[in-house]
């Protein structure tokens, strides 16, 4: 009797695994397909019979850098996403702290409202504003628009986090004569490192992936990666192998981030899943 139930549980475990792996396969297959395609010759990529059996080539990656000048947009994307992340923190952290301590409801609502307003509603007026100010095609223009996603997200994650830090900590430090700045910089910030990681990782990813702002506000000098690979499409013939190589390289950093910092990525994505 006992033997049978262990057998049964092993069997159940195996079925469970198989179902899980099958579902997982569906979700990661496009990535496998993308990476395989990146290493294929033009003749192999147009032949679906040769999904796995082909002679790998590095040609696509080489031509990406030599013919399509991948390096420039790569640098632009790094500068823009890095700056947007840092600046979102500089703007968002002290504000979230202040909002959490003094319950500035109006500011909280406004910044959360920005999260639901569609990008296009900012893009049109900001494009016209930036044209007048000579900011179209500049790094600072694109960085500012990416902060429209980063700052509200910072506030969304940080306010509840700051609110959950025991009030006594702050009050006793103030009674001991510490300044507000010291309390913020030396107590609150060190205590919030995990939440700050969450915010940074997600803001970076969102900025890296952003398509619409960069497409309109960037120019040949400040073009970002999503715009670059999108522009591959407008070439007369579609070079699928080149496209897959580009797509793989653009996606690689975010995939590495989510493998190394999985905990923070999940926390950031599910922020707000549970109230409090």
């Amino acid at each position, binding site marked *: 009797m006992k033997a049978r139930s262990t057998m049964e549980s092993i069997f159940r475990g195996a079925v469970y695994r198989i179902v899980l792996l099958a579902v997982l396969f569906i979700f990661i297959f496009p990535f496998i397909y993308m990476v395989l395609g990146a290493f294929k010759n033009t003749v192999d990529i147009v032949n679906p019979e040769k999904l796995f059996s082909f002679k790998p080539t590095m040609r696509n990656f080489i031509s990406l850098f030599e013919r399509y000048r991948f390096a420039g947009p790569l640098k632009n994307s790094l500068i823009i996403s890095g700056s947007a992340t840092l600046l979102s923190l500089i703007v968002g952290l002290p504000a979230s702290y202040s909002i959490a301590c003094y319950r500035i409801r109006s500011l909280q609502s406004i910044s959360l409202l920005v999260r639901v307003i569609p990008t296009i*509603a900012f893009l049109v007026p900001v494009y016209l504003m930036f044209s007048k100010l000579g900011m179209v095609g500049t790094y600072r223009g694109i960085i500012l628009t990416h902060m429209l996603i980063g700052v509200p997200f910072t506030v969304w994650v940080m306010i509840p986090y700051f609110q959950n830090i025991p009030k006594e900590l702050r009050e006793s430090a103030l009674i001991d004569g510490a300044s507000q700045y010291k309390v913020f910089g030396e107590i609150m910030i060190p205590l919030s490192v995990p939440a700050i990681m969450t915010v940074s990782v997600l803001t970076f990813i969102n900025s890296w992936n952003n398509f619409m702002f960069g497409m309109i506000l960037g120019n040949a000098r400040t073009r970002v990666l999503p715009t670059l690979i999108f522009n591959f499409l407008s070439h007369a013939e579609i070079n699928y192998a080149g496209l897959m190589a580009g797509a793989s390289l653009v996606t690689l950093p975010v995939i590495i981030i989510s493998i190394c910092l999985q905990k923070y990525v999940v926390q950031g994505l599910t922020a707000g899943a549970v109230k409090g």
Partner: protein
Amino acid sequence: MKKPLSSSDRIAQYLFIAPMVAFLLFMVAYPIFYILRIGFYEYSLSISRDMDWVGLENYSYALTDKSFWMAGWRTLVFAFWAVLIETFLGVALALFIGNRDFLGRNVVKTGFLMPLVATPVAVALTWKLLYDNNFGIINHLLRKIGLSYPAVSSVDTVLSAYIIIDIWQWTPFVMLMVIAGLSTLPAECYEAAMIDGASRFQILRRVTLPLLSPTIMMTLALRIVDALKVFDVIYAITGGGPGTSAETINIFLYKEAFTNFRFGRASAYIIIFCLLIMVVVFGFSWLQKRVEVDY
């Protein structure tokens, strides 16, 4: 008793929020004011660079513009099916994986994370090849069993093809949200239910799902708002085509502004779109208060 703020405290408080206020004024308040204003003008870069006051003409034009409402309807259809299916699948997957501890749990989680974090344009290009009638693996396999799926190349199937991509992209989001919600459910409820001799199905129906409803509502709200704003994948693959058959409202608005350069009319349309989104958001937060459960 709250002690009154000293003046240095007050200065600190202002300094903390000053960068945020400056940012919001420059990047949110002014643009919103600006777009509200140009909604009342004929402002079209292709005709002239002048702005002509036209009052409510842009808005009245919107009411009769069939292509605008068609785009809106298409977006609703897209959002309805995409969100419905991904919610169902996501909740099922979350319950399937649950809080179970097994070897390789983190690997599995990372796998599910990938569609969510990958650059949408890169994902779109990959799906373009996957769907390709001649070179793509999907149609290659379908051909072997005598079927074909024209996906994004046919007016009849294009919306369904985009719904499939959206489901692939966002089901993991629902799953992660629900797993996060599951991890906070109180153990006592389960113990009580077990003692009362409830079956697994009864526990699922009477305990787990009701306790999860705030999380599911929150997820639904976020998903609906984002699905109504769908842009990147569709724009990258067919630009809303073939024809206008996959032109969702965001793509319609984008073309109105940056292909036709009719900024005045685009602004009026965008404001209508924002109002519709607000209605959804407030409707949901109202609903959310109704389903709030105490435990």
